[in-house]
């Protein structure tokens, strides 16, 4: 066996930059999205608060979504370029072998098979993840847009699409996040700490375990397959690039329109509150207590004459309600108080001297 290189270049700069933006937008989308999915959770509320409130959180979510969509558009045309112009093999396409590999690896894991499956450039684990991201991004972008601008959406689709999109957006998010947490974290963080998406290089040892077929081809010098001749590449590029560019521009324009279409997204503020103070009657003084029916018989003006001695009770009758003269007129009261020398007089003796005026007592 010849001396082997310890490391092999696995990803180019473009893939690594793409991955970085995917990682960034996905994480932000997941955090700002899940807190909206579970708004009653204390941690969610703390994060929302930390991000400056729900409106801010939504803006961050929207901006990250646009980053992810732009990335997806770029990826689409980049893959197209690699396939059509550079004639790269379709190594990410799943095939029957992948299903077989799953079963063989499961068998190997539990000891039923002694042979680890021999996997190529992308093993089934990576293919599952890649296509899960493609599917997830598609579902999230479409349903997410429907939720972003439901008014425009319902001009084209039935109204029920909105709650359905909400259902899909929420559940797909949970599926995506759990997939990443289980599948991705296990394979490239726990099982091996695979840094090839950042450094571009992978250990040969790891290649041996995960991609033995590719390693073999590399060592035989047949991988990666040679690029088509320069002339053909040029011919294909001239055809592909303007077409792809046009399509990309169309997609960017529609994305821009979709996310800035204001009339449908913008809500009008609620109508101003009506003036609540509308008195039934203009405010004023309390209404006068109506005079009793007998009122006309009561003399309106009592002509005062000099009282004989001792003073008669002239203002009112000594009737039942006011039988206790001293309650008002005792020496220590303040309605026409009796002189101090009256202080020890009996309660019911008043009328003996102070005859009530005849006219008044008849009331």
């Amino acid at each position, binding site marked *: 066996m010849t001396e082997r290189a310890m490391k092999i270049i696995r990803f180019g700069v473009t893939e690594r930059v793409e991955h970085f933006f995917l990682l960034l937008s996905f994480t932000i989308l997941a955090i700002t999205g899940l807190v909206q999915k579970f708004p009653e959770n204390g941690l969610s509320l703390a994060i929302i608060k930390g991000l400056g409130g729900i409106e801010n959180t939504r803006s961050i979510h929207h901006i990250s979504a646009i980053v992810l969509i732009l990335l997806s558009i770029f990826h689409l045309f980049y893959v197209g370029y690699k396939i059509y112009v550079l004639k790269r093999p379709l190594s990410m396409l799943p095939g029957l072998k992948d299903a077989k590999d799953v079963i063989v690896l499961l068998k190997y894991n539990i000891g039923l098979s002694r042979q680890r499956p021999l996997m190529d450039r992308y093993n089934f684990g990576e293919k599952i993840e890649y296509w899960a991201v493609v599917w997830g991004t598609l579902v999230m972008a479409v349903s997410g847009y429907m939720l972003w601008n439901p008014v425009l959406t319902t001009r084209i689709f039935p109204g029920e699409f909105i709650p359905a999109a909400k259902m899909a957006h929420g559940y797909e998010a949970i599926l995506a996040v759990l997939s990443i947490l289980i599948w991705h974290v296990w394979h490239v963080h726990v099982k091996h700490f695979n840094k090839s998406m950042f450094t571009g290089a992978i250990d040969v040892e790891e290649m041996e375990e995960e991609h033995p077929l590719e390693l073999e081809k590399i060592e035989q010098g047949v991988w990666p397959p040679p690029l088509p001749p320069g002339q053909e590449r040029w011919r294909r590029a001239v055809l592909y690039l303007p077409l792809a560019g046009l399509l990309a521009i169309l997609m960017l324009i529609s994305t821009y329109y979709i996310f800035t279409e204001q009339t449908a997204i913008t809500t009008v503020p609620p109508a101003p509150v009506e003036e609540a103070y509308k008195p039934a009657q203009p405010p004023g003084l309390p209404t006068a207590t109506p005079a009793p029916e007998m009122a006309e018989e009561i003399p309106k003006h009592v002509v005062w004459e000099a009282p004989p001695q001792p003073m008669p009770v002239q203002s009112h009758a000594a009737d039942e309600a006011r039988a206790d003269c001293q309650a008002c007129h005792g020496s*220590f009261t303040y309605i026409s108080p009796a002189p101090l020398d009256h202080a020890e007089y009996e309660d019911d003796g008043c009328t003996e001297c102070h005859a009530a005026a005849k006219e008044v007592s008849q009331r």
Partner: protein
Amino acid sequence: MMIKDQRLMIKALAKERDGRFTLIINHQSLLLALLLAVGLMAAIVLPTCAQGSPDPNRPSNDQCLVCHAEPGLEMTLPSNEVLPLTIDADTLDASAHGVHADEEVRCVDCHNDMSGYPHADFPDVDYRTWQLKMSLVCGNCHEDQALDRQDSVHARLIAAGKFEAASCADCHGSHDVQWADPEKHEVDRMQMAEACGQCHSTILDDYKQSIHGQETMKGNQDTPTCSNCHPAHKIPDPRSAEFRLKSPEMCGDCHADKELMSEYDISTDVFDTYVSDFHGATVSIFEATEPGHYTNKAVCSDCHGAHLILPPTDENSSVISANLVKTCQRCHPDANESFTKSWLGHYRPDWKRYPLVTAVKWFYWLIIPFTLVFFAVFVSTDAFRTLKNRGKKKGVGAGQQQGGDEHD
């Protein structure tokens, strides 16, 4: 000031006596001054609702009514308003402060600036100023209510110079004050609404037409009147962000109460379905994170109305499907008929009513567990094998650089 003959006469009597018992009168006036001072201090220091009847500083109502029962008694205020001064003893007795009160309340308990006769001059320029000052007296006994009221929208408006805003007597009455606690006394709840309607007449009209008002007028005790949503005496500003954010919970207090709603066959899902949807979730987040921040996300009253709430089956209801597009357009001006169908009408989606939503739900209810089980099975076996292999690798020895795995 217009002085009626009764008072003239009493004054005249006093004058007559002045001439004849000068010395004694002087004693009396000294005594009177002393009593006044003590009385004034007592009014400040002692709680005025203290019991015990024979108290010269706290004359009985009868003593006041000697004059104030007299028909036609009135006085002209500095503002030229004519204030009637005749009190109807029957009204007073029938009031909550009357003969059935828990504690005896006398005229001077409220009119505690009245000390003796002749009374002091009217202390304010006009009636309203004086009335607003008088409302402070209520807090002497009703302390909790008075404290609550200090934060109310009415109190704030008065403080800002809008004297027409309600104070105690405007709602409760003065000499005819009525019981207001429906838990302790039999209270006509519609009469309470009418009290608010004195100033908020258009709102009262709306309320009377609403399903709540209609039921209240029939004597239903479950329906809300004004104070159930605008709790007296706190009455927060209903235009405030806080009130708006809290309002769904307010509606939910009754409408999420299964026991209460079962009687009327009204779904109690309304609150949960609201909170789980976009508007409700946003409002609840706002309430938890930014309670003072205004949000335009719809609350119950934006769709159902605040005072003129009709049953959703009523043809004039703002939420019956025929009128829904108009209601949505209040905030979403470009909304069309199809947009209104995006709202699930407070229903939980089922196959019959919302098949697409239910299908999506079931798709994920199947695909998520399936995926997770597959992942879990695969990862756990993979982890098991990896650990086992590493153990072996160590066991075989560090000398072997490659092919630690059992490739064979």
